[in-house]
């Protein structure tokens, strides 16, 4: 198993000009939630030009489907144009490429609910806000998603308190 290196994963996606939104645990932690995770979850734009850039980034990352590692199956344009989840392993650890989250929310639906952030090395990324992360987890309603909700709600509450009255 390859050790996750979140900074390198995000940097390579950004260097290839991929339009994506960071969701899930990494997105929550970037906004102050005290969770832990071992994979990076992203939702990408399904614009054909963006899928081409994502394919190039995934090639650079040596990405393959992690369910059957011995077969080294690679994602294709068709896979990335579907709303399904592509659970990949890369040279910088697990990467989940999601066509949609919750009840069919795609990149363009999520974009108005994101914030731009700078991580190390000047890499700029878009992250799904905590309000929408909470709504998505409530929609999914799986045990692991419900377990994360108190951490997300407290992070949102403390973040609002820190910002003060708007």
């Amino acid at each position: 198993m390859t050790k996750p290196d979140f900074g390198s994963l995000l940097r390579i996606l950004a260097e290839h000009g991929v339009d994506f939104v960071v969701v899930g645990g990494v997105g929550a932690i970037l906004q102050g939630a005290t969770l832990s995770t071992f994979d990076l979850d992203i939702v990408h734009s399904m614009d054909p030009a963006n899928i081409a850039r994502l394919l190039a980034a995934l090639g650079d990352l040596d990405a393959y489907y992690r369910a059957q590692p011995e077969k080294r199956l690679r994602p294709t344009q068709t896979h990335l144009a579907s709303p399904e989840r592509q659970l990949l392993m890369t040279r910088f650890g697990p990467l989940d490429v999601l066509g949609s989250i919750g009840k069919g929310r795609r990149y363009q639906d999520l974009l108005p609910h994101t914030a731009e952030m700078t991580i190390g090395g000047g890499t700029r990324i878009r992250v799904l806000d905590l309000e929408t992360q909470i709504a998505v987890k409530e929609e999914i309603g799986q045990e692991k998603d419900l377990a994360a909700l108190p951490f997300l709600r407290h992070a949102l509450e403390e973040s609002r308190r820190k910002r003060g009255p708007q």
Partner: protein
Amino acid sequence: MDDPLDPPLEAPDHPHDSSGVDVTLIRWMLDMTPAERLQVLQSFVDATWKARGANDET
């Protein structure tokens, strides 16, 4: 002697609510930049990997 009906001079700090989330840790995270928060996560992953490797060797 203190009147028990008087409020305490300092309100007791209750960092955990009924869900058990430690709010002091969230405040600590919120004092950092996003890049620093990512470093905290990466340090956690690195330490976990190192510990797992050490266990594999025993």
